């Protein structure tokens, strides 16, 4: 049976369609608002736009919240799809089933960051009664809307190209050690990981927004490779099982959700202050505290596995 019949995908796509419909309604109004919005004027049109602004706000609050839940649900359904796709032991196989998989996942992650940024700007905008950041906020959303449409199209292409008959390669093949980019060795990777982590923490306390943005962006990739190629081994306690997805499964007590969740939250709060300040000029240094908190949390979980294994066996994988 084709992939579209599996319940998770059917439900997922139908909810995506509903969200896309709502967002296009909102986008229609946003275009109107962006063109004719003038807070000082007192024409009937302006009051009408204000009322439409409430509709856009309600819809976007709802869709951003649901989008985050759907991202979690997407990961869950990838896991359960592993049973349907031949040869896939975990969602790595499902994602690797065709070239679009990784693209969709990466785009989804970027969108979550983008919508998160929008959400923060929106809450700032609503605190002041005269909607000071309305225009930049809606320009940002219009850009995100194009991404959302392309994300939906990409998902359809991705799901329709998942081969159900041909077995796909799963994590043991996809993530071999020679695949490490730029000739990293594992030790070098770990050193960079900890160095970058410490530098981010320092920058956060010094409130250097632009620097911590760059470090966090770098940390996004370093963190991904460090967890997949180094810390993952100690979670699975196997030298060659390098897979970022398997730790999301039941047998590893869903630890993956916490490790990746805290990492992304830390990076998100690390990158946002500079962007928000540039767009709205508001001071959001408080977010840096959260960034350090979550990054430290994610790092402690990873190091716990590493230290725990090393103390237990005294062997470095």
């Amino acid at each position: 049976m084709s992939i579209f019949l599996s319940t998770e995908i059917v439900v997922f796509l139908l909810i995506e369609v509903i969200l896309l419909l709502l967002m296009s309604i909102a986008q229609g109004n946003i275009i109107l608002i962006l063109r004719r919005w003038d807070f000082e004027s007192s024409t009937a049109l302006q009051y009408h736009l204000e009322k439409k602004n409430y509709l856009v706000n309600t819809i976007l609050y709802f869709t951003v919240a649901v989008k985050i839940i759907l991202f979690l649900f997407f990961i869950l359904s990838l896991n359960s799809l592993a049973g349907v796709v031949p040869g896939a032991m975990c969602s790595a196989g499902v994602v690797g089933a065709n070239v679009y998989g990784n693209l969709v996942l990466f785009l989804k992650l970027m969108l979550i960051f983008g919508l998160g940024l929008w959400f923060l700007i929106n809450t700032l905008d609503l605190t002041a009664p005269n909607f000071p950041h309305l225009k930049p906020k809606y320009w940002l959303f219009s850009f995100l809307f194009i991404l959302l449409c392309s994300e939906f199209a990409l998902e359809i292409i991705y799901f329709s190209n998942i081969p159900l008959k041909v077995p796909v390669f799963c994590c043991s093949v996809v993530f071999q050690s020679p695949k490490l980019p730029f000739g990293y060795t594992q030790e070098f990777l770990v050193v960079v990981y900890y160095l970058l982590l410490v530098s981010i923490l320092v920058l956060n306390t010094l409130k250097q927004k632009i620097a911590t943005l760059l470090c966090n962006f770098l940390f996004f990739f370093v963190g991904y490779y460090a967890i997949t190629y180094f810390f993952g081994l100690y979670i699975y306690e196997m030298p060659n099982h390098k897979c970022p997805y398997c730790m999301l499964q039941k047998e590893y007590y869903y630890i993956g959700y916490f490790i990746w969740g805290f990492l992304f939250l830390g990076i998100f709060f690390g990158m946002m202050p500079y962007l928000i300040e540039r767009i709205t000029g508001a001071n959001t240094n408080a977010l840096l505290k959260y960034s350090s908190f979550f990054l430290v949390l994610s790092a402690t979980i990873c190091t716990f596995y590493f230290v725990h294994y090393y103390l237990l066996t005294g062997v470095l994988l």
Partner: protein
Amino acid sequence: MKQMILRDIHKIYNASKPNAFHALKAINIEIETGEIVILKGVSGSGKSTLLSLMGGLSKPSSGDMIVEEENIAKLPDILSSRYRHEKIGFIFQSFNLLNGLSVEQNVQAPLMLSHLSHTHIDEKVMRALDIANIAHKKRQRVSDLSGGEKQRCAIARALVMNPPIILADEPTANLDTHNSRLFIEMLDTFKALGKTVVVATHDVLFEEAKAIDRYIHMKDGEIIP
């Protein structure tokens, strides 16, 4: 000190359409704090429209309305609803109560927007009910009350936020003479509380009320001196 200043207010319904109706023409009024004003005039003379403008229920086509140094003529909904919530207590001709709820629940309504604790809310509600002396019917559903009692519940609701301005639109139209006189005595309590009151009515009973400071006569959307 001026409580409310209306300068050159115009109100044109469905302005651009052929059946445009010029409801208010060049209204200029200044109301002192604590003053009780009666808008007299036959129905259709624009009394109710002026009152709804004062109460922020609708917006003037042109002109300024200054209340406590703030122009409320052109407010976005967030600010105009805050103005109605904190500054205005409205008493309508048809009482406009939530029939399914009890008196207490109706009077509580404005306080529900605030973050006060339960004890504070109950305290304020009881004080408003006492002033409007409807406290004995607190638990009863509004739909079972008589006309006079409903009016007193509406008064309590208008007073619960302790707003500086009370607006009443034909308050005695649905009341018998006994309750109308009671309402007129209520004007004294309003005066005692230092409220600025504007009543739109064409009820003759108001002639003999002592508490009234000024009468404004209106005809066809204009003030006649």
